[in-house]
């Protein structure tokens, strides 16, 4: 699904990534690790197409709208409610049974009671859960997750474990994390940066 060869990314004069190579197929999970500032987020943004490599080859054989991206920021509108946010994305992704799926996800991630609350007054963990709902909403074929366990409580982390395991065979995963042990059971490849 993804094939990277000699990937390089610069910002101005600084070279952030250099000679990154990996292959990822459906059912694969690539764990990306590395110290702060080593380029994990940058690599993930290249994978989803939000940034372009300065050199090297990167072939991503998934349609843009079949990708789910969980970034550091939740990529949501703070002034809209959880429901309105998911409804917007549900419409854009043209999800069949949009309302039902949104309801199901909100319930599963424990946000159902807060569905009419603006994201601005969500706690950080609740925002992360909402961002996960957004990411999983359209059952993407490629899931790119940047520190997905960050600021989740134990229950939330277990929930996410389950979601990942459930999608194991149907999708490919790229996960950047500082706690690789968490996803190691599922991992098929590991990439250490920096």
């Amino acid at each position, binding site marked *: 699904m993804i094939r990277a060869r000699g990937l390089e990314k610069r910002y101005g004069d600084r070279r952030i990534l250099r000679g990154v190579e990996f292959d990822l197929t459906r059912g694969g999970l690539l764990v990306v690790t590395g110290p702060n500032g080593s380029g994990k987020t940058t690599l993930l943004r290249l994978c989803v197409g939000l940034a372009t490599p300065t050199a090297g080859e990167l072939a991503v054989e998934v349609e*843009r709208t079949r*990708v789910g991206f969980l970034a550091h*920021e939740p990529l949501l509108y*703070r002034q809209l409610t959880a429901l309105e946010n998911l409804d917007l994305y549900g419409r*854009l992704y043209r999800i069949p049974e949009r309302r039902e799926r949104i309801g199901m996800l909100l319930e599963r991630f424990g946000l159902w009671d807060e569905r009419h609350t603006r994201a601005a007054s969500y706690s950080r963990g609740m925002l992360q859960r909402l961002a996960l709902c957004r990411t999983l909403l359209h059952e993407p074929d490629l899931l790119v997750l940047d520190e997905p366990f960050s600021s989740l409580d134990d229950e939330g982390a277990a929930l996410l474990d389950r979601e990942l395991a459930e999608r194991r065979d149907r999708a490919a995963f790229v996960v950047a994390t500082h706690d690789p042990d968490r996803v190691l059971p599922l991992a098929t490849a590991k990439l250490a940066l920096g």
Partner: protein
Amino acid sequence: MTYLADVGALARKDLTLELRARDTLPAMLLFVLSILVVFHFVLPPESSDLAAKGLLWVGILFTALLGLTRAFAAEREDDAIDGLILATRDRSAIWLGKALAVFVFLALAELVALPAFALFFTDIGGGTIAGVVLADVGLCAVGTLLAAMATASRARELLLPLIFLPLAIPIVVGGVGASVGSHPATYAGFLALYDAIFALLAWASFDYVLTE
């Protein structure tokens, strides 16, 4: 059709946001009304309609600019724009949705301003109204693209007037011509041409503005 559905969802989102936060429309209204006040105190009652009509156009232009500077504020916060980029099949839908929303705000501000203007100064004819509508289209089409550009830059709001005003000047020329000239139809035609050219150009090139 699905394209229009995207556009609709995006424009709707902007209207909801404005209903919630009320960041943009009040400032636009305030500005337009203060202009009328300024001119009420400045223009001697017997002064020409021409000057008053001219001022109307200044008001429209700057009100649009005020709305445009805030157009992508919600998207910039928390990089929400990245989410939209990933979710839309065709990125120009983002442009069209936003331009529509800005158009609605501008139209609402004018819906207050034009009658107030007619009340305080001089009558507004059909030529002026046609001119205003056509000019609004052009202002929103070009302005939204440029606002997206300014958002991507470091100077942000400072940059928008600089890149926007030179492009908007033909609109002002056309608009003023349509509302005070002796051949309003010619000027309206000119405005329609402007709208067509620049809307097409903006629509075709918006994709490049968003890609890194």
